[in-house]
């Protein structure tokens, strides 16, 4: 299995949509073949259309507010005493997370194809919140499918979705988290694909959704490249890009523009959710060697039992609480372009405390997983190494959990 140079990774799949011959594909009911093919034709045309890109960039600039900041975390760097620690503050984006890029692009596509309704899944509530924002912006009706358990633990985002006029549909089947929300959303699309557009909230699902999402979030690394050139005059000799990985949309977007660099120069480190330290129910299929299976239309490494039933996961961060992983990351793992590891709930919380203590930055629980590993690694790295963490979400949505785990006082004071 080989990664090709000079071709965007999203376009490296084969005719049937498989990366490396085995990850991804289109394991979908017959009914969805046609709407998926329509979307493929539309996207393949528009992604090279100058006017469409102009339109996308206009909304990215004026509405999402790109570029997001690249900042040096001076206090943290001093405290850790190793590599230089930087952060790309993607949570600066309108809405507070990277999910806005994909949501905006899907709404632009839906608008052009004449659809009136857009549906989406959500775990942490960010994908749902952003889709509801974008739908409102572009005059589309919006339905968000969300696990009942996630609705309880991510109330601020639920309120935001409702405020934007979206229907939030609770999903009570299975583990009542993201995995069930995606299933329910796909089922709804099966029944309504003639009038309704679907936005999959991450780089997962049938191949076209993986591609659209990866294409959209790549905005992050396009900006980062420019920012590094402005800051250092060139791409530094040793760069390490840390990102949390649930479905894999922010990490893929954070890395994409650097794909062709030698990994000795620009290394990619994906941090999965290890779950509670004592639990075996992790959400880290790449780190803990899960087997290949089919979930939500795509072949991928996925947590499952020997029969092929998908297993429930457990993580403090709803956004990473997913048993599978993007086919793109399976491909990057097996081609050894990226390496993957996991942080536990406890480690993520600790990292959140450290970051908020030393810096004026409040990463949500998802990027706190990445901070945890980055801080540990940075200690051992030389001063000329540039460690950059994608702070892809803001902790506002986690207030309830943080208060419960760390105390009200702690959360109020920062």
């Amino acid at each position, binding site marked *: 299995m080989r990664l090709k140079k000079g071709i965007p990774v999203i376009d490296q799949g084969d005719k049937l949509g498989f990366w490396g011959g085995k990850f991804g594909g*289109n*394991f979908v*009911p017959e009914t969805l*073949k046609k709407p998926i093919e329509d979307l493929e034709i539309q996207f393949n045309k528009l992604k090279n259309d100058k006017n469409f890109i102009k339109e996308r960039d206009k909304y990215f600039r004026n509405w999402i507010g790109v570029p997001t900041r690249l900042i040096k975390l001076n206090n943290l760097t001093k405290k850790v005493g190793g590599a230089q620690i930087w952060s790309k503050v993607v949570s600066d984006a309108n809405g507070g997370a990277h999910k806005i890029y994909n949501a905006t692009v899907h709404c632009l596509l839906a608008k052009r194809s004449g659809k009136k309704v857009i549906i989406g899944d959500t775990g942490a509530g960010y994908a749902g919140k952003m889709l509801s924002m974008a739908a409102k912006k572009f005059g589309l009706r919006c339905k968000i499918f969300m696990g009942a358990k996630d609705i309880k633990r991510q109330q601020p985002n639920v309120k935001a979705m409702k405020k934007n006029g979206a229907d939030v549909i609770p999903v009570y089947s*299975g583990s009542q988290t993201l995995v069930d929300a995606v299933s329910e959303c796909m089922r709804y699309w*099966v029944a309504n694909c003639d009038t309704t557009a679907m936005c999959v909230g991450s780089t997962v699902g049938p191949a076209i959704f993986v591609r659209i999402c990866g294409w959209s979030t790549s905005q992050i690394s396009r900006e980062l490249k420019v920012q590094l050139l402005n800051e250092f005059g060139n791409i530094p000799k040793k760069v390490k890009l840390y990102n949390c990985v649930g479905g894999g949309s922010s990490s893929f977007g954070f890395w994409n523009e650097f794909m062709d660099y030698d990994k000795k120069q620009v290394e990619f480190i994906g941090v999965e959710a290890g779950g509670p330290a004592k639990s075996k129910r992790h959400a880290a299929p790449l780190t803990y060697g899960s087997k290949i299976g089919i979930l939500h239309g795509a072949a991928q490494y996925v947590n*499952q039992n020997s*029969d*092929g039933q998908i297993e429930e996961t457990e993580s403090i961060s709803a956004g990473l609480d997913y048993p599978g992983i993007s086919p793109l990351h399976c491909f990057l793992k097996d081609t050894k372009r990226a390496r993957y590891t996991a942080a536990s709930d406890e480690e993520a919380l600790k990292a959140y405390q450290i970051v908020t203590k030393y810096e004026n930055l409040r990463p949500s629980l998802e990027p706190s997983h990445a901070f945890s590993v980055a801080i540990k690694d940075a200690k051992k790295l030389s001063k000329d190494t540039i460690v950059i963490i994608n702070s892809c979400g803001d902790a506002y949505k986690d207030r309830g959990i943080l208060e419960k785990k760390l105390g009200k006082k702690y959360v109020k004071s920062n």
Partner: protein
Amino acid sequence: MLNPISLAFKKAKSEKRPALVTYTVAGDSSKKQSLEILKSISNYADILEVGVPHNTPVADGGQIQTSAYRAIKNGIKMNDIFQIVRDYKKNKNSKPIIFMGYYNMIYQYGKNNFIKNCKKSGVNGLIIVDLPWPENKIFSKHCKKNSINFIQLLSPTTSNKRLKMITKDSHDMIYYISMLSTTGGKLKVSPKKILSNYNEIKKISPKKNCVIGFGITEKTISNFKKTDGLVVGSQICREITRSLNNGQNPVINVSKMVSRLRKKIS
């Protein structure tokens, strides 16, 4: 010699009625009970679809999901499902069995192993909801070699061009999904429209036995008497749930329901 599925269609045709195809989930609500249900409905149904329960189904509505989750919760495993079929096939009155499920279950079992076990236990056909054409080309050929009918699905969104290619690659039986819906949805398209689509398919592929599924219930079934076959699933699953909730015996209630369904198309 005709395979058992084609024979079942032939027999129904000779009686001037569509074949009645039922769907129940293996292991719902227990291994024993699901076997009893299969045995008792064999008096009225012509072909039995046996659902292989999966916990992330992307095309099943509420009723079938409930049945599937119930079966999984009660511990059903792939090998138990093969055993149910083996036990069922010991009956004199046994009917052709079609497995219906999702591809991951087969993928994890091992494709070759799965087909081998289907053959050994007496499974006559396979419907794999999330393995569409052309992705299923190699697998369906492999099924055919082993005398297992791979049943291709067609839907209202299937283009004519695609329809021709799919039916060309199909075996004796094809399955038309009546409308854009998950299983168990209310019939939201008129029977007339469904029949006109059905007739289109028959025109293109007159020799294949084409069944209609999704939205077929006691209420709607008599609209479709002039077809090769009809599938009833969600209503049966709902009857099992209802019986369990009321402390009644699902075997008796389901059997009565299937008998009523049969009368309506005879």
